């Protein structure tokens, strides 16, 4: 039977690198119907093909390159795609998303997914064009940075519009947090997917397509699309969207510092006195040259910077986002914004996650301050806070895994194990993933988000900005007027379990559709009804026009990803926070004294999720209700189901 749904390209590629064979296969109907696409389908593929015995950097690991039905389908903001694998940094579920133009182009070239197995005997890259795919020699590309790699691939195909997703030297060198770079300055940064590709001798993927996408009911889809787009024009969101267009995510430096949640000095505090130096105004005035947007996006948050002169003269290139400004800025007490532009761009060229890299450098700086690391450990580098020269050198050393860079390339958890003693106290991570730019001591529910996020300490699987920025109408509409006051109290743990469960499910759809978090996460415009509205006319999957079905699909994806981690040994014990964020009250700033009530929130979260409070394991009837019987059977064999009813 042929794949019946529209909005998808309709095929995926199964690549066996070890044998050098590529199989083009028709999309599985059930993948679309039950898991939608993107993260959902990736979870199904990785559940079936990897597990506790899979070494992340061995040929056994599998990389899923995915898009969703909304990718390239004119829905704003939908120019996204995702990568998933078992993660080399964390050893658990790894997922990383990126914007730009690659995702849509891959679909126009005829493929919704690429599933990569094995290890190639020599460096290769995958080229897709109009339903055909081939593995091409990448010997000349090996050892090149991402911009040169992209340029060489485009020259080889004599086509400047070939889209690329490539790794840099950090991926080749198996840096645990190596990224995949799309379109020169967009990164699937987190979790080290670049290292997994590097371990497989895959330099990247390139594609170009003219097959296009058909729509089930174009008139109805465009109408639904216009209804959703009209929501963006509501005066309530004008200021937020205008800010995204003018400042991009850099505006968050100012907004977040104001509530005392800006990670500063390796997460010691949440308030940075010199935040203005790395903040939105100076960047907009002095360095920002132009605005850009991903494919088909009406928001357009990307900006281009140029530093005209001085040590760090550079650009035009994609400007650092909030997280990069935080990681190399406030987190390291570095207020030299030009140096942050430089390090951000170097990370893009080397192919390395700016968050994990900056956070690992901040960790090393704190160990230096405490005397745990000294000159003999650091190859003579002075790691005092804000020492820009040393930071710039460390970025290069980490990328090459030279000297102390080798240890730091493994991330803070491994580095702390290697150093021993008290070093672990300063390693701010969950499940091995360095914390992103939030702090639960100033925003309770972030604690729960960090603890339960399947990929580790990161906001993008369930952050709630409803209480962060205060949207009373949204709080009432989603959770009931009677709960609204407590929902909106950023330092109250009340109802946060319910909210985070709800956000996690919503984002499961976002990550499977595949669309951007902007306009779902913040501003909180799109909700479940958006998916009910657009998926069915686009694809022809009539069940997706039913709210109950859509919410169940969302829960199914959330549970499957969680179950993937349970099988790797994750329980409530690992759904925890690092000591600093759990036990050390916020020392300074507007959120002074704050601490998260994690246990209370976790109990509520597990209740709403249908899991056991003690272990975090799911209940059999919950999994059965979601059609995940095969997961229940597998977990039962491993004694990983909730006991009792």
């Amino acid at each position: 039977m042929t794949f019946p749904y529209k909005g998808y390209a309709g095929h995926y590629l199964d690549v066996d690198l070890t044998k050098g064979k590529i199989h083009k296969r028709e999309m599985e109907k059930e993948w679309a119907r039950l898991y939608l696409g993107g993260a959902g389908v990736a979870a199904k593929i990785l559940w079936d093909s990897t597990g506790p015995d899979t070494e992340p950097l061995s040929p056994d690991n599998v990389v899923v390159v995915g898009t969703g039905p909304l990718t390239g389908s004119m829905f704003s903001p939908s120019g996204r795609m995702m990568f998933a694998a078992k993660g080399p940094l964390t050893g658990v579920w790894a997922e990383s998303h990126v914007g730009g133009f690659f995702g849509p182009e891959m679909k126009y070239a005829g493929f919704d997914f690429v599933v990569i197995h094995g290890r190639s005997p020599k460096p290769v890259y995958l080229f897709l064009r109009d339903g055909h795919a081939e593995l091409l020699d990448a010997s000349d590309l090996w050892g090149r940075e991402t911009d040169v790699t992209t340029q060489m691939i485009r020259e080889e195909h004599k086509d400047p519009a070939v889209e690329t997703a490539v790794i840099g030297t950090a991926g080749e060198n198996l840096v645990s947090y190596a990224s995949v770079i799309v379109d020169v300055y967009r990164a699937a940064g987190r979790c080290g997917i670049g290292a997994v590709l590097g371990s497989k001798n895959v330099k990247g993927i390139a594609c170009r397509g003219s097959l296009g996408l058909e729509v089930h009911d174009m008139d109805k889809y465009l109408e639904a699309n216009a209804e959703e787009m009209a929501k963006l024009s509501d005066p309530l969101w004008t200021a937020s969207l205008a800010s995204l267009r003018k400042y991009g995510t850099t505006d968050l430096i100012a907004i977040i510092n104001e509530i005392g949640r800006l990670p500063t000095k390796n997460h010691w505090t949440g308030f940075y006195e010199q935040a203005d130096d790395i903040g939105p105004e100076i960047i907009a005035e002095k360095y920002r040259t132009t605005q850009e947007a991903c494919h088909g996006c009406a928001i357009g948050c990307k900006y281009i910077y140029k530093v005209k002169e001085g040590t760090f003269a550079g650009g035009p290139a994609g400007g650092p986002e909030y997280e990069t400004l935080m990681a190399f800025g406030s987190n390291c007490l570095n207020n030299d914004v030009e140096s942050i532009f430089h390090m951000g761009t170097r990370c893009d060229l080397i192919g390395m996650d700016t968050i994990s890299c900056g956070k690992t450098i901040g960790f090393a700086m704190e160990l230096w301050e405490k005397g745990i690391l000294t000159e003999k450990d650091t190859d003579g580098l002075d790691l005092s806070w804000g020492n820009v020269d040393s930071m710039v050198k460390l970025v290069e050393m980490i990328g090459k895994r030279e000297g102390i860079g080798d240890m730091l390339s493994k991330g803070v958890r491994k580095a702390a194990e290697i150093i021993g003693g008290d070093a672990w106290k300063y390693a701010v991570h969950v499940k091995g993933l360095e914390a992103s730019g939030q702090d639960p001591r100033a925003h309770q529910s972030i604690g729960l988000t960090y603890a339960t996020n399947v990929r580790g300490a990161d906001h993008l699987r369930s952050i709630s900005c409803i209480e962060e920025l205060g949207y009373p109408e949204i709080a009432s509409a989603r959770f009931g007027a009677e709960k609204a006051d407590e929902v909106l109290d950023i330092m109250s743990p009340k109802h946060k379990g319910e909210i985070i469960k709800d956000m996690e499910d919503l984002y499961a759809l976002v990550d499977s559709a595949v669309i951007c978090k902007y306009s779902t996460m913040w501003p909180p415009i799109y909700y479940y009804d958006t998916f009910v509205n657009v998926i069915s006319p686009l694809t022809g999957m009539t069940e997706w026009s039913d709210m109950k079905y859509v919410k169940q699909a969302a829960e199914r994806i959330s549970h499957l990803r969680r179950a993937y981690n349970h099988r790797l040994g994750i329980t409530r014990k690992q759904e925890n926070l690092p000591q600093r964020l759990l036990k050390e009250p916020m020392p300074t700033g507007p959120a002074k004294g704050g601490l998260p009530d994690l246990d209370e929130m976790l109990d509520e979260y597990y209740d709403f999720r249908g899991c056991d409070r003690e272990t975090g394991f799911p209940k059999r009837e919950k999994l059965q209700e979601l059609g995940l019987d095969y997961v229940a059977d597998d977990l039962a064999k491993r004694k990983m189901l909730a006991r009792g009813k």
Partner: protein
Amino acid sequence: MKKALVINNNLCTGCRNCELACSIRHTNTFNPARARIQILKDDFRATVIPMVCLQCDSPLCADACPTGAISENSVGVLTVNHDLCIGCSNCVTACIYGGISIDPILRKAIKCDLCGGEPACIEACTYQAISLQSTDSQGLRGRSDSVRVLRTAYGLSEVDV
């Protein structure tokens, strides 16, 4: 009065929504490769280059066409007659503005037909970068101004915008 699309490079973000809108209008699919407006990105100069037919007074494409398939219609829009077009690409080679291309499915020349007066791309552009302008001296000046940033990016002019 003849009209043509003018794309303001200072407003264009390179999102390519115009291509999608154009492909829906003309093919009822999402397929930028079949769009009659093309946004080329130059990642290395961090710039975008919009390309669309300028509805030239002395069209190089029409001159190059061996079958006389390209001509002005009653409202001054250069149009390709697909009954005559043999898909030889001479027009694509001749046009120095990238304003005409070969449809990958039909294998015939395609170009902007201004959607009969209400271009889909204008409506789809959320950045208001595209407008329909008369090809009189004022309109042409507007078009020239709107691409000045490209002349600087490619070193053809030293004036910083």
